């Protein structure tokens, strides 16, 4: 996802946040992963906004997508021009209003923004894990988030909200912790990757692994597979856009020139844009994390993991009020995939609402300012929050 590519210029937000860390799973109490491997200690990087009310009924967990991090909103310091990746959505008086709700966002397991991942130091060897890091799953990421919430003494979640790979975590939360999740908002997501989605991820992984500087993932002493990672990002970025969006954003316009150059430099704006996005990404993301996180997304399969190959059975235990949102131009996780999960929820008699938002910008639509998405999310949570309060009286 393009968490930071569109928001860099959106100006400073007044809310100050701080990245915090929590460590658990020290040997011999390592976390048992879905693969059967054990991992520990695990450090989780997280940020919070707002404050938890006395009754503990206003906590909202925001789950980030592939290239996001714990920095969901606000700024780290005065004059910081780069607010969090969902600053348009989360903050005081915003759709997820931090004057009312306590918002938590943590970096996912396997990531590279403070939570334990392949670039972290393996305490046993005192060197980065690299490819010795165990393969992790969406379920494992959610287990780590649960450990964090336990540590923060959060026993109930008013809502879990996330898009794309974050949406998978939302579904996982609703399925795995039905007693804890009051509502779940799954944006632009799927219960399992299509062959198309796996294919693009595999192209990205191959680009990284075939980079001469990859060195079987043990590249932390050298330059690392920056070309491969940039290429992986270019491919990924295309899948987050749409034909429409690209036509209106670039068309066939040329970059800083009037005529074709008859060479292999970036003649077209779209070429130049992708090169820029690719190279910028290498400054903020670890190639091994890209491998692990895309693999986790590819492995995710609600049917297989929770339903004995039945999507209906997978959602049988869910109690949360569900809101599923898709976007018309998202061809990575198209609307039919959202409809399929809604179908399984209906068959279970769940309280589910579904809306397909007309949007031109493809899969990334959920990250961009969108009036409809704002109003759907804010009113959906608000209703639930007010109902909860009136029931408590």
């Amino acid at each position, binding site marked *: 996802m393009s968490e930071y590519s569109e928001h860099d210029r959106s100006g400073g937000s007044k809310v100050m946040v701080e990245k915090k860390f929590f460590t658990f799973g020290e040997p011999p109490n390592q976390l048992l992963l879905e693969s059967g491997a054990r991992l520990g200690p695990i450090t989780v990087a997280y940020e919070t906004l707002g404050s938890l009310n006395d009754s503990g009924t206003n906590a909202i967990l925001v789950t980030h997508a592939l290239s996001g991090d714990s920095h969901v909103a606000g700024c780290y310091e005065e004059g910081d021009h780069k607010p969090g990746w969902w600053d348009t959505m989360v903050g005081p008086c915003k759709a997820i209003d931090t004057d009312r709700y306590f918002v938590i966002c943590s970096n996912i397991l396997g990531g590279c923004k403070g939570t334990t991942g392949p670039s972290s130091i393996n305490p046993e060897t005192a060197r980065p894990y690299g490819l010795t890091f165990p393969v992790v799953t969406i379920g494992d990421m959610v287990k780590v988030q649960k450990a964090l919430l336990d540590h923060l003494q959060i026993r109930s979640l008013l809502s879990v909200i996330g898009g794309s790979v974050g949406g998978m975590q939302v579904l996982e939360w609703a399925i795995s912790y039905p007693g804890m999740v009051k509502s779940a908002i799954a944006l632009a997501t799927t219960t399992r990757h299509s062959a198309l989605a796996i294919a693009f991820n595999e192209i990205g992984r191959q680009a990284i692994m075939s980079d001469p500087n990859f060195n079987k993932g043990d590249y932390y002493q050298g330059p690392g597979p920056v070309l491969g990672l940039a290429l992986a990002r270019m491919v990924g970025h295309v899948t987050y856009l749409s034909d429409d969006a690209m036509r209106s954003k670039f068309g066939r316009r040329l970059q800083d020139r009037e005529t074709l150059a008859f060479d292999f430099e970036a003649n077209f704006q779209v070429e130049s844009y992708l090169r820029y996005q690719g190279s910028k990404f290498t400054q903020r993301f670890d190639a091994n994390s890209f491998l692990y996180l895309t693999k986790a997304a590819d492995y995710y399969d609600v049917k297989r993991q929770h339903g004995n190959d039945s999507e209906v059975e997978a959602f049988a235990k869910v109690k949360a009020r569900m809101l599923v949102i898709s976007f018309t131009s998202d061809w990575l996780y198209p609307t039919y995939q959202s409809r399929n999960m809604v*179908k399984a929820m209906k068959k279970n008699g769940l309280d589910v*609402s*579904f*809306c397909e938002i007309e949007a031109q910008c493809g899969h990334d639509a959920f990250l961009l300012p969108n009036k409809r998405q704002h109003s*759907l999310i804010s*009113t959906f949570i608000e209703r639930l929050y007010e109902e909860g309060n009136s029931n408590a009286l």
Partner: protein
Amino acid sequence: MRYDLQIIASWIEPGSKVLDLGCGEGDLLSSLKKEKQIIGTGIESSEEKVAICIERGVQVLQGDITEEVVDYPDNAFDYVILSQTLQQVYGPHKLIKELLRVGRQIIVSFPNFSHWSIRLQILFSGYAPKNRQLPYEWYDTPNIRVITIQDFRRFVKNTGCRLIREVAINTHSHDLQGSIITFLPNLRATFGVFLVSRRNNGNKGQP
């Protein structure tokens, strides 16, 4: 709330499960939730209207009614409501059969095409009728079916369903006011509202 919806609401037992097909902005469901504590869900094709439903706290799915209804298990609802939509449905017989599968009872309302004013219009003008209930030209109308109160009664009888309640009303399509017509309804009522169930509830989906 629209007059036909007021009639429909008055038929719903408190605390029941209700599916409203083509629920619009959720007027009926939100009123039933408040007044009768029902558990309701709506299906609506317009994104705009779906958003309004969610803002009002009405559970809603954006989609096509004929496609959405098939996902529900048998007897998932106490009532399935199809108000002022039957005349726009491509396969009414199939749809009603499906509604009777997912709901114990169905409530159907539609504009009565045999109202005297419509009959007179055809008789004297020779043009396809156009009035406040049916305000479209033949070439731009969403109403692809011509149904009369008498037609629907016969349909219920021939398909072996049970007609539980029937009310003919005189109202306009978006009016809040109206009156119940008991004398010559097929001639004098602008809308018919019907409550129908399967003949016996063991005989699932066999109208």
